[in-house]
């Protein structure tokens, strides 16, 4: 916008564009508090009168689909990101500090993993997990998540390693610390921004994941929160209010998680962006 345009023009245009963009978010939010009849008749109108029936209905549903899915998703997501943070921090540290051919080879192989679509590997993965006796189990899904997302974790951590002075580690070694101690007491605490980014990114991705739990965890053993939403589409076909309430409750935990750590999230993203 040119210098001569009035000062109120930019905020006004920005607000208008954002408002149009946010209409679907508005629809997702208000329809949680509307009766299904009103959702069908007029999706855009504000709730009249507002009702909490939809939320109560989902939370106290006889099949307790919401609560069992929530439990599964919390377990899968927290276990996956905890293991991923530890393994990818150590691997990222190792690869950043070693420049031998094997180290570079591992790095190249991991970078390739960043672009592999899950569809390409899922058929053999079910075979691998079956032979380990982990198909259709929580542990199997966590193990797959770890393998599939470790390249991203390593990518972030090894990028941040440049910010940790090698001298610190050498000083610790001279003082008699083992590699293990040096890493966990000195390096890892300095990697806090990277750890935050990895936890939040992977937390959001794994929580929201649909395909992998659909195939690996399977509907027989239960559902994660997002495969649960998908499974209930038929059940809620005529109950729009209930559907929106379920989706709201399924999104709320990860949205809170994201908002609490948002600053690091965007910082981590742009950090990766400028370092390429």
């Amino acid at each position: 916008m040119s210098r001569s345009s009035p000062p109120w023009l930019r905020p006004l245009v920005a607000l208008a564009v954002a408002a149009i963009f946010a209409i679907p978010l508005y629809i997702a939010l208000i329809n949680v508090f509307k009766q299904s009849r009103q959702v069908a008749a007029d999706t855009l109108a504000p709730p009249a009168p507002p009702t909490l029936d939809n939320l109560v209905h989902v939370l106290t549903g006889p099949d307790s689909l919401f609560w069992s899915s929530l439990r599964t998703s919390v377990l899968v997501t927290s276990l996956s990101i905890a293991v991923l943070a530890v393994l990818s921090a150590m691997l990222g540290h190792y690869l950043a500090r070693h420049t031998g051919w094997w180290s570079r080879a591992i790095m190249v192989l991991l970078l390739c993993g960043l672009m592999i679509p899950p569809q390409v590997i899922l058929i053999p993965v079910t075979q691998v997990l079956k032979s380990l006796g982990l198909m259709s189990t929580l542990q199997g899904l966590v193990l797959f998540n770890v393998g599939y997302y470790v390249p991203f974790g390593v990518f972030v951590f090894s990028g941040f390693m440049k910010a940790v002075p090698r001298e610190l580690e050498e000083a610790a070694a001279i003082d008699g610390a083992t590699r293990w101690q040096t890493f966990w007491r000195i390096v890892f605490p300095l990697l806090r921004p990277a750890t935050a980014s990895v936890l939040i990114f992977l937390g959001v991705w794994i929580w929201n994941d649909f395909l992998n739990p659909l195939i690996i965890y399977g509907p027989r053993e239960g559902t994660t929160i997002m495969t649960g939403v998908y499974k209930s589409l038929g059940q809620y076909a005529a109950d729009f209010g209930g559907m929106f309430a379920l989706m709201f409750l399924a999104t709320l935990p990860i949205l809170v998680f994201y908002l609490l750590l948002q600053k690091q999230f965007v910082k981590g993203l742009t950090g990766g962006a400028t370092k390429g």
Partner: protein
Amino acid sequence: MAVGTIHRRPGPAGTDARGRRDRRRRGPGLWHFLTFAAPGTLVYLCLVLAPIIMSVGYSLTNQALLRPRTEFVGLRNYELLLRDETFLQSLRVTTILTLIVVIVPNVLGVAVAVLLDRRGWLYNALRSVFFTPMVISSVVISVIWTRILADDGPVNQALRALGVREPPGWLSDPDIALYSLSSIVCWQMLGFCVVVYLAGLQGVPQELGEAAAIDGAGAVRRFRHVTWPLLAPALTINTVVLLISAFKIFDHVKVITNGGPGTGTTASVAFVVLQEGFVENRTGYASAEAVVMLVVIAALSVVTLRILQRREVQL
């Protein structure tokens, strides 16, 4: 383990506690590799790298759930693919989907980023608005948009109120559904592009634009010749990420259209591979499709990355 607590243990010469500690500290030792690098590498190897090789292996067989004996069939699956109308159509669908999803969020993303490139609480809040869809599951976004674009949904209600007698079936018309689906993905990915471009804009020195303004360049020329070239790294990241994301779109197709309306009008390659592998259970044939998908996405990413990065270097 504190240094003082290491006890001397019996063992062959040179492997006493002191020797072991020294070895751990020194150089690229095997022990260091085993403790720090091996666990992550091993899981990656078993669950990503080995499956890729297994996929190539499967694709050379007629493996299927109901077939009692799996036989080696050479390249026959690949020959069949060339004449498989379902697969060829999925390639066309994916091409259209990918083109739209790579171009539209990039263009709109630059525009929105330039618009929001100011300090203050308002712009911070608006940035969050654009980023929010990135945090919401594709499943949830798909269901919301299915309602919005339903034949009796709010969009068509509004069109009818404006006097349109027969508003389009956004998701039920085979000629339109793919474009509706692509638009939904664009809406979801826009926030990512905005954030990356905003980060890029922060790296553009204010003085450059001012100098160009003093030399008499208008807003458009300043953007075209000063800002845009400096956004090259952001363009690279966005394009490659969008390309890879577009290529593996499955959730939206599964939830919104399940490949329809009609026969496969929105069935992307990613969707067809899984349909063939886990619904039809023809795992050998599905693996051949998966291998083709991998080769195409790898080639496209490498070529795109090369081209865009060369543009960065020339600056």
